[in-house]
């Protein structure tokens, strides 16, 4: 017994070392399972507030580029406004047109703008932290976009902050389609380059060309239909009858300041209805 204790004492540094290494490996593995330890995530209050403070400073410094983006968005909105005004004028003459489009009055999607408090883009599994949380009506599984296109999906919420899994996370899977085609594929990220993602599961009988745009599909009720994801830059034919397509992402993840979180108002209703059909 005494020699055992002597042995343990002699190698206590080694044992301590092994204990700490095993502890960190356990943390890595558990974290990878997506069961995020809440107090260790960046939605916790200390880390969240510190990042909040620094992002305020950096937001101030990047005001000019934000301004530029706003000007562009403003121009886009003005253009849309003109178009809508034109349509409205036409509808005044054709009253039946308004009737037919009555259901469009009912808004399916609610948008909430949030500031990106912190983002990681240099790892294999990246995250964004935003400054809106459960108290602002944000829930797990909501889609996140910005003015350029699809950003990601909310994966964790606290009262005032949420964590978003962007496309740049090896676990993100986003349903997408190629403009003009009805088939649906999956956009995922293989790591390494923050500007490109892969589009998989598109069958080879559909013609695909370089420069085609990839947009979100309406299949999952997370994103509205036709939100930009990116453009096709490389096409590879696999021998299992599917394409492997490189997509240049439209969102610049290294410089992302504001995002819109999308709530699909009738999600529960839709899911219930579909489940009822399934069980029949």
């Amino acid at each position: 017994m005494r020699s055992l204790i002597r042995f343990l004492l002699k190698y206590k540094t080694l044992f301590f070392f092994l204990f700490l290494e095993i502890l960190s490996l356990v943390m890595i593995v558990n974290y990878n399972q997506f069961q995020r330890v809440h107090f260790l995530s960046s939605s916790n209050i200390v880390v969240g507030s510190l990042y909040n403070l620094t992002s305020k400073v950096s937001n101030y410094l990047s005001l000019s580029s934000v301004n530029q983006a706003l000007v562009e968005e403003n121009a886009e909105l003005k253009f849309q406004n003109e178009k809508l005004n034109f349509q409205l004028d036409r509808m005044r003459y054709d009253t039946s047109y308004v009737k037919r489009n009555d259901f469009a009055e009912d808004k399916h999607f609610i948008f909430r703008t949030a500031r990106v408090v912190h983002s990681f883009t240099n790892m294999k599994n990246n995250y964004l932290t935003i400054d809106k949380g459960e108290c602002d009506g944000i829930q797990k599984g909501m889609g996140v976009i910005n003015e350029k296109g699809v950003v990601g999906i909310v994966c964790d919420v606290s009262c005032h902050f949420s964590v978003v899994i962007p496309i740049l996370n090896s676990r993100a899977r986003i349903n997408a389609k190629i403009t003009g085609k009805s088939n649906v594929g999956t956009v995922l990220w293989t790591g390494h380059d923050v500007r490109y993602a892969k589009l998989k599961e598109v069958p080879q009988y559909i013609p695909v060309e370089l420069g085609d745009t990839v947009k979100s599909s309406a299949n999952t009720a997370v994103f509205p239909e036709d939100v930009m994801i990116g453009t096709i830059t490389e096409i590879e034919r696999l021998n299992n009858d599917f394409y492997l397509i490189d997509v240049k992402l439209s969102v610049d993840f290294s410089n992302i300041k504001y995002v819109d979180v999308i709530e699909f108002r009738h999600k529960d209703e839709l899911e219930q209805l579909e489940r009822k059909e399934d069980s029949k």
Partner: protein
Amino acid sequence: MNGALKYGLLFIGLLLLQVLILNNILFLGFINPYLYIYFILILPSSVNKDITLLLGFCLGLMVDIFCGSIGCHAFATTLLAYLKPHFQKVFGPREDYETVTPSFRTFGMKEFLQYTIILVFIHQLAYFFAEAFTFTGFFQTLLKAICCAIFTILFIYIIEKLKYKR
């Protein structure tokens, strides 16, 4: 006590520098200096080995919490803290080993650089493989580790140079 306070401030300072500034450099899209390990590298040899380990683990975990990569930095930095006293014995001065603080002056420039290069490379390899948690894409992970290690070593070199400028 004065020494403990100094190293405490250094710990917090390097941690904040790392998570608030250096993690956002992203040179060429993925290269960051991981300067926080400088704290472990220059711990005096009079610090108990167990305490060095604990400090390494805590520092790594703190960086992890900010980076959302729980466990990866802690794993690599604990390894670094374990190996540090051994390499210090190899490269450090033979006499008064008990009280030496690693630096250009005490080790000599060549020895200190060798000591830094080996430990930083080990740390970066451990970190990037812990993060990838797979050996697929081995060479891409290796490339990342090497680029970041070079960047880190460069930063440490500059800091050491500046320290003895005055």
